[in-house]
């Protein structure tokens, strides 16, 4: 189920990116708003869809990863989205950790926050979802058996 959802998300995301580029060709005036939103959704969806596709297994639930994946999608959508919708305050813009607010959201939010979540989610679920000793033994045995019968 999650595998199909991940695949569908990647397909829809690529269509969204394609649409963003199509708008840039056909209606350049719209790229500042609609095109950019298509691009934002395309990026967030493609990243999360690819992760779901890679992490999902037929026999195991992806439930332990739903929160980190939802977090990643939200960070990308909100981070880029706020860059689009928050008004520019010029030289008076408030600083957050030394950067103007909108730049800080991009740099710290998108450039750093996922590191605090994704690698740990990968490591925490590695044995259960990615590759246990049993999984490894099973693949090696299957490959050896196939070699033996070939």
């Amino acid at each position, binding site marked *: 189920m999650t595998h199909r959802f991940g695949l569908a998300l990647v397909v829809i995301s690529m269509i969204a990116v394609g649409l963003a580029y199509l708008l840039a060709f056909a209606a350049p005036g719209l790229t500042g708003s609609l095109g950019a939103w298509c691009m934002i959704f395309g990026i967030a969806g493609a990243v999360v869809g690819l992760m779901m596709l*890679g992490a999902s297994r037929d026999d195991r639930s992806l439930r332990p990863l739903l929160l980190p994946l939802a977090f990643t999608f939200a960070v990308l959508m909100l981070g880029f989205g706020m860059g689009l919708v928050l008004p520019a305050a010029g030289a008076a813009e408030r600083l957050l950790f030394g950067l103007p607010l909108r730049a800080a959201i991009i740099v710290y939010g998108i450039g750093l926050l996922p590191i605090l979540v*994704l690698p740990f989610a990968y490591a925490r679920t590695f044995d259960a979802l*990615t590759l246990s000793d049993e999984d490894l033994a099973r693949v090696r045995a299957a490959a050896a058996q196939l070699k033996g019968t070939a």
Partner: protein
Amino acid sequence: MTLFPLLEASALPPLTQPVIVGVALVYFAIVAAIGVWATRRTKNASDFFVAGEGIGLWTLAIASMASTISGFAFIGGPGLVYSIGIGALFLVLPAAITNTMGCWVLAKRLRLLGEIRGLITIPDAIGVRYRSRFGQGISAVSIVVATIGYTATNVLALGLVITAVFGVGRVPGIWIGSAIILSYSASGGILAGVYTDLFEGAVKAVASVLVFAYVLMVGGGMGGISQSIMAVDPSYLGPWGKIGPMAALSFFFVFGIGSLGQPHVVHKFYMLRDPRRLKWLPLIVSCSLIVSLLLYFGVGIAMRALVAGGRIPALASPDDATPTFLLHFTPIALAALVFSGVAAAIMSTVNSFLSIGAAALTHDIPVAFGRRVKDELLVGRLTTVVIAVLAALVAQGSGALVAFLGIFGWGLFASTLVPSLAIGLNWKGATRAGAVGSIVTGLVCTLLFETLAYMKAYKLPAGVTASGLSLVMSFLVFFALSWLTRATAESTLDPDIRAVMEA
């Protein structure tokens, strides 16, 4: 819009000072020693191309980081930040995500495929996944073309660094640089490359942290830097910098999703000794990458603040940002370390490309024609020399042509390899027709759009990158053709490949 201006090489200011020359010589001596050691351990083609699947976690992680960051991150990157502000960060922002994504999508499956099928190249993986010699061959052709172009760009950059440090001139600099890289690449192969990458990665990370500390000291902290810039040009520190949202987001798309098709990086998954050690790979690579990119961000923004505050005159060329900052605001020993780091970054990238290019010529293209080279180790070594010489000859040509080839090569990796590899290894419904169609689409579109842009025959709309357009078209063709030929999907899957995909 193309990425062409980003890599156009320009001369560096002269750096011929005893400390810088001394550190550079020590650095080259260490690299040569690693090359000699690795040569003694290289006994067969597997050692030469995939380090005999015997690399440990930390070495692999730092080597992956080192080959991800080319010299661009030390010279061109800070120059780009100096020019367009926050917009330039969209090339590196995906680093927080791409390593974990790469491990989920590719690492386990490539490592297991490498083990059970004895794979040594990325086209190998495409060949066995789709049972397609044509797919393997055409992806290998893309890699060879891209490798020569990209290597030429990096060899030219190395030539410029050597010229700046030793004052030898551009052409001798190119050949000296090529000879140094060949001295360990042709004999020790990727094994030498991985261990020099480890050394170079450590140099890069340490240098980057130290330089960033000086950035904060000189600029009065991040707040001081921001205030100096905002007083003169607030849009520089806007969320998209001096480029629009579409252009910035296109960078993120191409550098984020495109990272899954960079063969010099994903190829390293084959080398890990124990696949269970993948568990901590994303954390180590992501953290070391972010640390090494502090210089990219810090120097560019600090130089803009110093110019805005009237402390230094405007730079003649954006590429002067790093040399100017280092020579004016850091101790000479640190400057020497960074310039060695620049050479290190370029050399580690070139070594990786020589290895994958040689593997494509020695292994994949003969396999595509149903043949195997008898002595892949010997032919691999000879091919490495041939590619390096070709790249050096190309690098002697015009800077604009070299930059074009580098861009062409870079875009090709993303648009030809990502769908067939990243989706194909995770979706049993992917078909041979889809894979071949997407590789051909990526090849044709990248060539077409980049050539038109290079010849100034056509200008893409604002915010559209040739690489991004080619990548998305390649994806869409992959899905469309796989769906249209879905009845053939099962027939292209061997049982052991299915076992790996289900693992």
